[in-house]
C-alpha cells in the first residue's frame, strides 16, 4: 500500500445536515480541519510566545491570525487550528518558531469540528449546553469548554449569525452527532 487514504470519524454522516431549506435557519456541517495542535507556554514565557507567533488571547476569547485560530483552553494552553497548513508542517513549524518558550502536541486527529449556524442555533444548543450564549454575554470570538450530552466540547463562536464551531474528541464524534441529529429534528425536516 503506497497511497494514503484517510478516514474521518464522521465519514458515515452526510457532510452537511440541512435542517431547513434556508441555511440561515439552521445548518449543521462537519468541517474537516487542516491541522490542530495543542500549544503550551512555559511559565513566564507567555509574552514571548505571543510575540513569536504574533497573537494574543485572554481567557474565554479566541484570536484569529492569518495563519490560525487560537483558542485559549487553560492557563498557558491553547488549541491552534491552522487555516491551511497541513498537520505535520504546522506542528513542526510552530514548534520551531516558539523554540524554548513552549511545547507543541500534534492533535490534528484528536478532534472533529462540527459547525452549527443559523437562527435556531442557540435554541438548539440550549437543549444541551449549560452556558449562556445570549448575545449580551457571548459574542463572536467567545470560546469555552463545557460538556454537552455528557461529552466534553470546545466551543467557539465564529460570527453573530450565530455560527459556532464545536471541537469534539474523535472517539465521541459519533455519539455527539447522534445527539445533535436527534435534537435538531424538532426544528424542521432535514
Amino acid at each position: 500500500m503506497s497511497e494514503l487514504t484517510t478516514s474521518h470519524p464522521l465519514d458515515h454522516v452526510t457532510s452537511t445536515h440541512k435542517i431547513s431549506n434556508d441555511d440561515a435557519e439552521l445548518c449543521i456541517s462537519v468541517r474537516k480541519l487542516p491541522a490542530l495542535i495543542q500549544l503550551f507556554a512555559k511559565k513566564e514565557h507567555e509574552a514571548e510566545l505571543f510575540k513569536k507567533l504574533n497573537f494574543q488571547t485572554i481567557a474565554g476569547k479566541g484570536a484569529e491570525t492569518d495563519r490560525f485560530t487560537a483558542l485559549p483552553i487553560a492557563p498557558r494552553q491553547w488549541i491552534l487550528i491552522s487555516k491551511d497548513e497541513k498537520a505535520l508542517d504546522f506542528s513542526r513549524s510552530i514548534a520551531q518558531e516558539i523554540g524554548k518558550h513552549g511545547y507543541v502536541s500534534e492533535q490534528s486527529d484528536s478532534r472533529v469540528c462540527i459547525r452549527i449556524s443559523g437562527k435556531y442555533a442557540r435554541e438548539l444548543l440550549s437543549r444541551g449546553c449549560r452556558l449562556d450564549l445570549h448575545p449580551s454575554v457571548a459574542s463572536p470570538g467567545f470560546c469555552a469548554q463545557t460538556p454537552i450530552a455528557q461529552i466534553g466540547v470546545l466551543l467557539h463562536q465564529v460570527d453573530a449569525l450565530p455560527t459556532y464551531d464545536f471541537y469534539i474528541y474523535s472517539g465521541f464524534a459519533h455519539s455527539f452527532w447522534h445527539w445533535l441529529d436527534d435534537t435538531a429534528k424538532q426544528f424542521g425536516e432535514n
Partner: protein
Amino acid sequence: MSNEFRTSKAGVRLNRDKKIAFKFDGNIYHGFEGDTLASALIANGVKLMGRSFKYHRPRGCLTAGSEEPNAIVELRTGANREPNTRATMIEIFDGLEAHSQNRFPSLKFDIQSVNQLLSPFLTAGFYYKTFMWPASFWEPVYEKFIRRSAGLGKAATEPDPDTYEHAHLHCDILIVGAGPSGLAAAKSAAGSGARVVIAEEQSDVGGMVSSELDQIDGVSAISWCQKTLAELSTHQNVTFMPRTVVFGYYDHNVMAALERVTDHLLEPEQDQPRQRLWTIRAKQVILACGSQERPLVFDNNDLPGVMLSSATRAFAERYAALPGKRIVISTNNDDAYCTAEVLKNYGVEIIAIIDARTNMTTKMQRLEDMGVRVLTGAIPQKAHGWQQVSGLSVQSVSGEFIEKINCDCVAVSGGFSADVHLASQTGAAPIWDDDLQSFVPAKPIRAECSVGAGHGSFGLADCLFEGHQAGVGVAELLGFKAEETKPPAADKVELYTISSVWRCPGAGKAFVDFQNDVTAKDIALSAQEGFISVEHTKRYTTLGMATDQGKTSNVNGLALLAAARGEAIEKVGTTRFRPPYSPVAIGAFAGRERGLEFQPTRRTALHECGEKLGAVFVEAGQWLRPQYYPKPGEDIMAAIYREAKQVRDTAGICDVSTLGKIEIFGADAAEFLNRLYINGWKMLAPGKARYGVMLREDGYVFDDGTTSRLADDHFLMTTTTANAGRVLAHMEHASQVLWPELDIHFCSATEQWCGVAVAGPNARKILAGAFGDALDISNDALPFMGVKTFNWLGTTARIFRISFSGELAFEVNVPWSSGENMWNAIWEVGQEHGLIPYGTEALSVLRIEKGHVAGNELDGRTTVADMGLGKMMSSKKEFIGKALSQREGMMSNDRATLVGLKLKDANERLRGGAHLFESRQGANSETDLGWVTSVADSPAINGWIALAYVKGGLDEHEGKTLYAVNPLYGEAPAVEVCSPHFFDAKGERLHV
C-alpha cells in the same frame, strides 16, 4: 348526558368551535378544545371520578388545579399509560382515553370499599400494632395482603415510548405564575431590558382572577391579563412559558421547571419531545404563585359534589362547566361570595350561603340583597348522599343542628393558604399569620421575593401593586432601569376577613387528607399516642404524603394537631417542603439519556474494521471494543481459544486504541514521572519504554502501563483503558497542586492515535511487509522495549516493541485518520502469514498465561507486593503513596499474594470468584485462603488456568493442591498452585 351542565355563557379557555370526543371508563363523552378532563366530565354531569387510597371511598373533583387530591385517573393506554394523572390538569384531545383507578371491578361498585366497614380498626398506625401473630403468617399472608393494596394507578410495564429532553435557560428575572401579580411584575420589568421569563403551570394566564367580577384598568380582569400577555410577547427580552411548572428551588438560584410540550395532544407532533425539563439560572426570582383554598373538615366532606368554592367558580368561568345546579355554599371568609355571584350569573341556584362568621359583611349584604339566603354563624355538620352529594346538614358554630338543605353541590371555603411551597423549599420556614389564618413566606434567604396571594396579599389591588413594585425593584437591583409606569389598578379594594373553624363538630368521618384517607380522628389519635412533632404526625398518619403532598390538607391538619396539643399553630409549624412542587415524570429527568444513549459511546478509528470482520463488541468503560471474532458456527469459548492459540502459532492483530495515552513535555518530565511511579525514570534513554506502576496516596496500586521516552523532555505515557481519566486528573493534581514548580506540560493524546498490537512469531514479517522500507524492525534496530518514530506515507507513526501477550509483539500508533489505512495495510500482508484479528478475551487469555495483572487483579486493595512486584519499588526516591504503603497491615506476611492455578481434573470447571481452601471440608470464612481473580481455558497450557490471590502465596503453597470452592455454582475443583508465569517464564519468545 351531553353537556347538560354546560352554560352557554363564559368559558374563557374554551374553543367552542372545536368539539372533542373522549372516553372515560369506556364511555364516550364530548367536550370542547380547552376543556380539562375534569371540566368536560363535570359538563357531562359526571361527578364520580376516583376512589380513595385506604377506604376506597367514592370521590369527585375537589379543586380545579394541580393541587387535586381526588380526581386522579389513568390516562392513555398500553405503554403510554400514565397513572395518577390529575383530571384537572389534563387538557382533552380527540381520542383521549382515561380510566378511573384503585377500584375493582368498577368505579361505581368497588369491592374494597368494604374497608370502610373495618375502618374502626384501620386507624392511623394500625399496621404497626398488628399482623404479628402468628409469626409464620407474616410473609405468606399479611405481607402479601399489605403489598397488594399498594398504590392507586397502574403503571405501564413496557418502555415509555415518548421522548423527553433537557434544556437550559438563563435570565435576569424569573417570574413564577402568570396570575395578576406575576403579570403585573412582568409588565413593569419588561421595559427595563432585563431578560424576563414568566412560567405558568396552567395552559393560560389569569390565575384566580374572575372574569365576571374583577376589573383591572377598566377592563375585565381576564382581558387585562390576556392583553398584558399580548403586550409582553412584543418584547424580545420576555419569554412566556405556559404549561410550565417551576417545581424545584435549588442552590444558587437554580430553578427546575417542567414544560408539558405535547401532553395536550394525542401524540407528540413529529420530533417534539413529550416534556422538557428546564434548568433555569435566574439572577432574581419573583414568586407569584397565588394561594390555595382549604376545604372545611366536616363529616362526609369527601362526597363527590363537595368542591372548593374557588374551583366551582373556576370550572364555570374557564370552562363554562357547572358543578351543580342547586348549590349550597359554605364558607368562613368573603371569597365565596364572589363564587355565589358568578354562579348565580350563570343561572345556578344558590340555595344558601352558610357562613361561620357571625358579623354581617358588605359582601354578605350584597348577596342577601340579590335574594340569596345567608346564614351566619353556621357551619356544615354532615354531607348526605350516596356516591354524590344530595344534601347538607347545617349546624351552628357551637354544634346545634339547624337544618338539612337539599342540593347537588356544596361549595366549601375554609379560607386560603398562601402558596409558600417554592419560597419554603429554599429552607426559609414559613411564618403563621394569624389575621390571614395562613402561613406566609419568611424573609427571603435567596435572591427572591414573593408577591400577591403567595405573599399573603389576597386583595387584587394589593396583588397588582406588589407585582408592579417587585418588577421595578428587582430590575433596578440588577442594574436595569425600568420605565416609569403606573401600577395596574383594580376597580375596588377588598378586605379579607376569616374566622376559622378547623373541625366542624361531628362524630363521623371528616377527611383532612382526602387521598390518603386521613381523618380528623387519626390526627387526634396520633397526638394521643405521643406523636406530637408535626413530622411524627405526618409519618404516623400519612397526612400530606399523597400525590398532592397535602396542598389542600396540611394547614387543616396542623391546626387539628395544634388543637390536640393545646398549642398555637405557629408552635406546631409545617412539615418540610420538598421539591417537586407538582409531581414530575421520571422520564423527564432522564431526558435523552436513556437506552443506548444512557452514556455516550466511544468508538475507535478501527470500529468499522472490526465490524467488517464480524467482531462482537463489548463495553470497556464508555468504549466499545471487539471482544472476539466468531467464525460461523463458532461459540464464544471456541472463538477465544482459537484466537489465543493462533496468536502464539502465527500472529494476531488487536485494536488497542483505547489505552489511555498522555503526552508529557518539559524539562522536569522525568522527575515528575519519578514522583508518580514507584520505579525510576531518570535513566531511561530516549527511544526506550518502561513498565511502571503508580500508587494512590494511601499506598495501594492505582494503575500501571508502559511509558516511553521520545526525547529528553518528551514522554508518552500509557494507562489502562479504565483509568485513563483518573490518571490524568491525578497528574493534574500533582502538577497544579503539589509541585507547581516543575516544568511539565501534558495532555491527553488518546484520540489522536490509533493503535494496534501485532503479536506472534510472524509479527515482524508482517509489519516489515506492511511498512516496507520506511522501517527497520529487526531485533537489533528495535530491541525489546525499544521505541521508534517513523514517517509512514507522510504521517508520523510510532512503533513500540512491547508485549502483553508474551509473544514477539509490536504496538503501532498512527494518527486516527490513518488508522483504517494502517489496519488494511497490515491485514493485506498478514494474510500470507496466518494473521487473525483477536479481541479482548483472547488478549486476556494471553496475559493470564503470562501472569500479567489486569483489572481483576487490581481491585484497589492490592499492594505492589501482593502483585509480586515488591522489588520494583524504589527505596532511593520518594513517590506518591510510598509513606502509607509501609503501614503494618499492608506489609504483613499474611496478605494474599498473586499465584497461578492449574485445574487438575479437566472435567471440572474453574471460575473467577471461587475461594481457595486447603480442603473441601470445613470451608468457611475462617479457613478461607484467598480467591480466584481471572481464569482462562489456555491453549498454551492445555487446560484451565487462573490467577489468584492466596494467603502465604507461592512461598507456602507452590506445588500444593488447593480447592477452588464455589458454593454459588456448587463446585469445588482441585487446583495446583504454580507460578503465575505459566508460559515461557524466561521470556525467550519476547526477545527473538
